């Protein structure tokens, strides 16, 4: 009996492959298992291979599986494309007859006429239900959750449809049972848990929910994969709370609208991916210079240019840290799990309000579009702190007559009064300006106010690192974003193999937590920086801030997320002092 299973469904785009994956994932969730689902898709609408991998386990999982145990293949391409990740003992359920395995490797080919069975029952679309039935049979999972799904989904279409689907489910089970019996090695132990207190949700949706919870009421954005889901989420849910989504004409407008809305007192944001983020560079500087809070989510995808629009990467890091001309204060935070997306997003608004500067939430496709188990979000952990925003008669009375919007203060943070308030009229300008906001070219003021602005982020109350495991360690794995899950898992395996391994997740990338990182790496036997880009952007950022040699890296930039096994393998090389990854 297993405590973990990796299941995948593959076929042509437009055939409902992801919804099939999600049905399976949801069912496992409802049975109390932990889940993680990753969607592989292409930048086209219909046709072309797509697949959805679901990991199911009795302990939390935060990464794609290294291998797939059961593959439901609706076409030969799905077999060919995914065969490399099928270990000996894996099971391929191929639709119809005539499929071929590329090589003999102890993988079972189970030909099941999924479509035909469905068609015979009245509707070829029910092939997904046949596949579910087959899956239940192989894994020993109960059929109830699937039956409930059928009731919920098709109930309004009439009992006939429900019945047909139930039959399809059953037919799949029967077909497999008769031919391959109970495949005991796929049998999952009972989770022993209820799904209570847990959700299954995508990172983008969690981020959207976090924003809404934190009082954000305005999003302006331009559609782009893999960030559109945030926009789409808020477009549905903002009306419940008086919020507005504007689909801007481009990303420049989107960010400018968000800046305008923040200036007027809203909590406002934009969300985008690389190409749009590049377009936002000038306006990021506007937020920085005018000390207008704004929250920008960059759900990174594989660049450069249009690149691989539906593939994962963490290649915007350089631009996130260093983009925009001139020097501005900025804060960059990076959630690593779906659950963290919710809290990071909520806290981003506090940071923006407190430090009056752009806050960039660095996400990535792997994090934003993956659906997985998260603990229910604890609203009480979300605080709303608007920082030095003066409002209400008492607070205003104190400063009336002597208010300077950009007043010099020890912290660099200047109290803010919102437009519309009687008696506090001031100018906010993207030209350099005086303490009260008037355009100036005075060299002394320029230097002093630049220092003031940069000083604002000397102290940022957001954790720089999250360290898992004890340091000093034999090996420290360093990463950020969705890669974190793979690091944790690799660390577990390495620890199990006797290498004391700790994981340092950089939760705040700017201001860079140099001291904390130096401390965490102090005394480490080896260090490995893991990131999804080609030039070691994180490794170089680290070097620029803590010095020393460039740390060994694992760089992956082929569009696929980094898997735990790859980390483990590279870590072993590093420990053995074999370096080899390309560093530019």
């Amino acid at each position, binding site marked *: 009996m297993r405590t973990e299973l990796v299941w995948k469904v593959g076929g042509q785009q437009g055939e409902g492959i992801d919804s099939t994956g999600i049905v399976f994932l949801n069912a496992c969730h409802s049975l109390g298992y932990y889940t993680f689902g990753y969607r592989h898709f292409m930048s086209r609408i219909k046709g072309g291979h797509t697949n959805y991998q679901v990991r199911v386990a009795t302990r939390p999982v935060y990464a794609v599986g290294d291998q797939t145990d059961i593959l439901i293949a609706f076409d030969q391409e799905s077999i060919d494309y995914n065969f490399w990740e099928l270990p000996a003992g894996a099971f391929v359920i191929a639709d119809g007859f005539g499929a071929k395995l590329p090589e003999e490797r102890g993988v079972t080919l189970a030909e099941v006429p999924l479509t035909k069975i469905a068609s015979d029952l009245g509707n070829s679309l029910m092939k997904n239900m046949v596949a579910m039935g087959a899956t239940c049979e192989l894994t020993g999972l109960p059929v109830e959750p699937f039956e409930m799904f059928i009731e919920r989904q098709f109930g309004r279409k009439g009992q006939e449809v429900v019945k047909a689907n139930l039959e399809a489910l059953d037919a799949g089970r029967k077909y497999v049972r008769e031919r391959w019996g109970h495949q005991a090695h796929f049998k999952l132990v009972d989770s022993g848990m209820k799904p209570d207190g847990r959700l299954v949700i995508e990172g983008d949706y969690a981020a959207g929910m976090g924003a809404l919870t934190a009082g954000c009421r305005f999003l302006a954005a331009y559609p782009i994969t893999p960030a559109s889901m945030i926009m789409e989420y808020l477009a549905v849910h903002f009306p419940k709370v008086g919020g507005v989504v504007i689909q801007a004409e481009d990303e420049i407008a989107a960010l400018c609208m968000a800046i305008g809305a923040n200036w007027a007192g809203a909590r406002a944001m934009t969300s985008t991916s690389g190409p749009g983020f590049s377009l936002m560079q000038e306006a990021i500087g506007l937020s920085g210079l005018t000390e207008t809070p704004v929250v920008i989510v960059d759900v990174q995808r594989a660049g450069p240019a249009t690149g691989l629009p539906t593939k994962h990467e963490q290649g915007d890091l350089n631009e996130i840290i260093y983009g925009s001309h001139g020097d501005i204060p900025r804060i960059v935070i990076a959630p690593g799990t779906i659950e963290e997306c919710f809290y990071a997003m909520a806290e981003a608004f506090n940071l923006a309000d407190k430090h009056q500067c752009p806050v960039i939430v660095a996400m990535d496709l792997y994090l934003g579009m993956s659906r997985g188990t998260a603990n229910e979000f604890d609203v009480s952990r979300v*605080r709303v702190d*608007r920082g030095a925003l003066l409002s209400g008669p008492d607070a205003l009375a104190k400063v009336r007559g002597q208010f300077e919007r950009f007043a010099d203060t020890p912290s660099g943070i200047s109290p803010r009064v919102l437009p519309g308030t009687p008696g506090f009229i001031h*100018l906010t300008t993207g030209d350099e300006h005086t303490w009260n906001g008037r355009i100036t070219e005075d060299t002394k003021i320029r230097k002093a106010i630049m220092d003031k602005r940069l000083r604002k982020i000397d102290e940022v109350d957001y954790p720089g690192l999250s360290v898992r495991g004890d340091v000093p360690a034999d090996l420290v794995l360093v990463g950020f974003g969705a890669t974190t899950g793979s690091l944790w898992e690799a660390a577990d395996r390495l620890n199990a193999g006797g290498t004391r391994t700790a994981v340092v997740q950089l939760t705040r990338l700017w201001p860079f937590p140099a001291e904390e990182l130096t401390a965490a790496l102090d005394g480490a036997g080896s260090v490995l920086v893991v990131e999804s880009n080609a030039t070691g952007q994180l490794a170089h950022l680290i070097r620029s801030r803590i010095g020393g040699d460039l740390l060994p890296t694992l760089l992956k930039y082929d569009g696929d997320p980094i898997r735990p096994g790859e980390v483990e393998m590279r870590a072993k090389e590093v420990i053995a002092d074999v370096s080899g990854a390309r560093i530019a």
Partner: protein
Amino acid sequence: MSAALVSPKSFVSEERPTWCPGCGDYGVLQALQRAAAQLGLQPHEIAVVSGIGCSGKISSYFNAYGLHVLHGRSLPCAIGVKMANPNLTVIAAGGDGDGFGIGGNHFLNAIRRNINITYIVMDNQVYGLTKGQTSPTSAHGFKSTTSPAGSAENPMHPLRLALANGAGFIAQGFSAERSQLVDLMVRAIQHKGFSLLNTISPCVTFNKVNTYDWYRERLHNLDEDGSHNPADRASAFAKVMEHGDLVRGLVYAEEGPSYDEFIPGYTGGSMADMVKRADAALVDKLMAEYR
């Protein structure tokens, strides 16, 4: 605070304009000060969101909440301001380069969106602040440092574009025709939805062709043209064409529903007042979808 009585002076800021003597922008500024007073607005009730250029400095000189942004970006910033606090009277302002050059697409989309803001363009057919390059409204053949042999491009037609893309209020004023300009401003601000007020505002330093006199001789006053029907879009288009855009007065006006009327749940209140943690019950409901 009880509302103080306002006069045009209430809208004069502490800062003295740095425009060249004779610049058309003085007239626009003064007209706006008079219009604001005429509308009985208090300075704090107004937000002037301006772009970069000589014209963009208007937010420094008009006493109200001012947001002076990037070159070309006054409209999207103004839209954000208005949506976040609809209680503010929001004026977007800038130059012809700012609005129809780098900012042209925002102009087209602000029209489509029909949010209740007023856009005042100070059109001098030249790039002033960068020292006299050709602008999108410069005439074909206009000579400048970037087109020493004369501009090879045809000019942009802002009024026609606004007509084409469905703007609900379109007018053109002339900095030197102050009372008409004030009147147009008042009406533009009163108009519910997006209003365009293109304002001929001569640059006395860099545009030696399109001078006050040049305009005076040519501008056709639509407000006195009995044959002009500002409620008919197609005929307004023909009229503007007929005069080669050299018109002043109301081009077109028709009030339609504005953007926010189509936003479900939009409260019409300031979003600053909505910044609080969402109710646990609501979040619970949101989470239910993912349980």
